[in-house]
């Protein structure tokens, strides 16, 4: 983990965060799985991630991701970045999660609780 560079950590964090919030409402359909895989592939391509990180990301789906994991990884990534970059990453993550949580139009308590906990932990 120490060898993974900042950019790769951002990629991994985004994948993890997306997966966690996609699953948190208890529904994780094949379409969501296919989308996330394609999305992660897109991130990997954009970031030029080395093979070992691709393999790591490829296994994320099988990992049991918790909110604590996501928060800890987010803090780790933010600490690696200069202030302005960290702020942008944080804003982007916030908006990213906000869209995912609000996407289905349902006021899902689990999603809302997880999102609030994420905000509480990071702001």
């Amino acid at each position, binding site marked *: 983990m120490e060898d993974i*560079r900042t*950019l790769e950590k*951002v990629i991994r964090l985004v994948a993890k965060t997306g997966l966690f919030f996609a699953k948190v409402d208890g529904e994780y359909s094949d379409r969501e799985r296919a989308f996330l895989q394609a999305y992660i592939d897109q991130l990997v391509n954009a970031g030029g991630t080395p093979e070992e990180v691709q393999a790591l990301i490829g296994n994320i789906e099988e990992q049991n991701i918790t909110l604590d994991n996501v928060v800890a990884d987010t803090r780790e990534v933010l600490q690696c970045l200069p202030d302005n970059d960290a702020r942008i990453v944080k804003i982007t993550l916030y*908006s990213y999660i906000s869209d995912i949580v609000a996407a289905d139009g349902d006021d899902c308590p689990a999603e809302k609780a997880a999102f609030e906990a994420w905000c509480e932990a990071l702001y």
Partner: protein
Amino acid sequence: MGLLESIIRSAQEGGGGGGLEDILEQLGRRGQSTTGSTLDEIQRRRGQQSGTSYDEGDISIEDLERQMGIGKKNGNTEYNTGGYTQSQPYQQYPQEYQQYPQQQQYPQEYQQYPQQQQYPQQQQYPQQYPQQYPQQETTTIPMPQEEEQEQEVGQTTGGGMFGGGLTSILKVIGMGALAMYILKKFRK
């Protein structure tokens, strides 16, 4: 312009390509409709004021943070003491845009990394065309990529400026979130 229209337009325009300003603008637009409430609630519970009004066109990091309730731990006074108020026009913050000059300064990203997006496929074909992909070539190709990536990460973490790599990632995050929106919107 609705969210879906902005997605389509963005896709038609090739994802924008304007770098950080595009990201900020896109986030700002989406922030108007979908963000803010959760942080506002937390902020209210903490007994702090939030600045949720948003004037499209005056897009800055501070505006986005304020609009989303970010930076609330120090309250609005932090912005005021720094000379920023939301009513001040965009022209008073030119240095912010100069700090993130967009992709014109990173054209090499697109010239240096065209292979990156193509080479992951080569792992799938060695058995099928072993004679066309000799071992020597596959082992030498990753080397320059790694060097280029080091340079990119250095830009990202070095001077507080967004490197091309991180900007690309953030743009993908933005588009991915929009795609997720569509996926979930039409799933039910």
